[in-house]
C-alpha cells in the first residue's frame, strides 16, 4: 500500500462529480453522479435534496457506500486518473435550508458547487423557487473512508493501487 499521492489528492479535490453508490433493499447498487467535498478530517461531505431521498433511505438501511472519482471534465487536473473510495456513510433526518448554518456546508456550496456551476443560479431564480424549492431542502451525507484505490492513468482495466488511509 502507498500513501495518497499528490495526483490522487488533486482528483479527490478537483473532479466536479463522483459516482456515488448506495445499496437498495434488494442489495442492488444504486449509483448517481454527485458533488463531494473532501473535508480536513478525512471524511467526505455530500448532500441530497429531499426530492431525491432514495440515497438517504438506502444509507440508513445499509451504510456501505462508494465514491468513484473518474470523470475529469472541467477539473483542470493534468493527470486524469481515477480514485475509488469505499466507506461508511451517515445521513441524519435533519433538513437543512440555510447553507451558512455550518462552516463546512458553506464551503461545500460556495466552492464545490456554486463556483464550479455558475448556471446553477437559475435554481434560486423566480422560476426555480416556484418549481424546484425542494432543491435547497438538503440532507447531509458524511462518508468515512475505509479503503481507497487509485488509477494513475485512464487505463481502468489496469490493476489500481491500494492507498493507505
Amino acid at each position, binding site marked *: 500500500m502507498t500513501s495518497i499521492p499528490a495526483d490522487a489528492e488533486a482528483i479527490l479535490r478537483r473532479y466536479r*462529480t463522483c*459516482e456515488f*453508490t*448506495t*445499496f437498495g433493499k*434488494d*442489495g*442492488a*447498487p*444504486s*449509483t*448517481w*453522479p454527485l458533488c463531494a467535498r473532501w473535508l480536513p478530517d478525512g471524511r467526505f461531505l455530500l448532500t441530497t*435534496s*429531499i*426530492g431525491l*431521498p432514495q440515497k438517504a433511505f438506502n444509507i440508513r438501511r445499509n451504510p*456501505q457506500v*462508494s465514491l*468513484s472519482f*473518474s*470523470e475529469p*471534465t*472541467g477539473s*483542470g487536473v493534468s493527470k486524469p486518473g*481515477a480514485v*475509488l473510495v*469505499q466507506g461508511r456513510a451517515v445521513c441524519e*433526518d435533519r*433538513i437543512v*435550508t*440555510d*447553507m*451558512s448554518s455550518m462552516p463546512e456546508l458553506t464551503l461545500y*456550496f*460556495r*466552492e*464545490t458547487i*456554486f*463556483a*464550479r*456551476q*455558475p*448556471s*446553477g*443560479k437559475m435554481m*434560486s431564480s423566480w422560476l426555480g*423557487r416556484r418549481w*424546484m*424549492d425542494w*432543491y*435547497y*431542502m438538503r440532507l447531509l451525507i458524511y462518508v468515512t473512508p475505509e*479503503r481507497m*484505490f487509485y488509477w494513475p492513468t*485512464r487505463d*481502468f*482495466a489496469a*490493476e*489500481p493501487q491500494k492507498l493507505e488511509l
Partner: protein
Amino acid sequence: MWKRAKKDLGTYQEAVINVKDAEGRGVSVRQLKPALDVATGTMPVAIPSALGAVPGPATLLAHFHDEKLWNMRTMSIKGSVEQREGQWVFVASGYRPASPMDFLRGTRVSAAKYLERRGLPRPKPNYEVIHRLFAEASKISDP
C-alpha cells in the same frame, strides 16, 4: 428489446459499472466506449481483480456534464454481472429512459411525501444566503 438502451448509451463516450465485492462494498469502474449488444442486452466489462468484485446485481451508469458543470444528463441500466470464460459480462435486466417531466413531477412528489411522513411544514430555503454565496463564489478564479 435493448435497442433504446443501446441508442441512449451510444450518446455517451463512457459509462461506469457498479457492483459489489465479497464484503458488500461498492466497486465502480469506468468503461471506455461502452457498447451494449442489442440482441442479448449484454456488454463485456473490465473489472480489475484487486477490487474483489463478485457476481451479482449491478448498475451501469452513464452521465455527462460540461466544463461548467452544466448541461447535465444521465442514464442508468439495471442488471447483473457474471463471469463468462474468465471475463466479466454485464447482463441488462431493465432500462427506463429518462424523462425531464417525470423527473420534475417525481421530485416534487418525493419532497412532499418526505415532509408529510414526518409531519413537517414545508421549510423555506434561505435564498439571501444562497445569493450571497453565489456572489462570493463568482470571485473564485480557479475553483
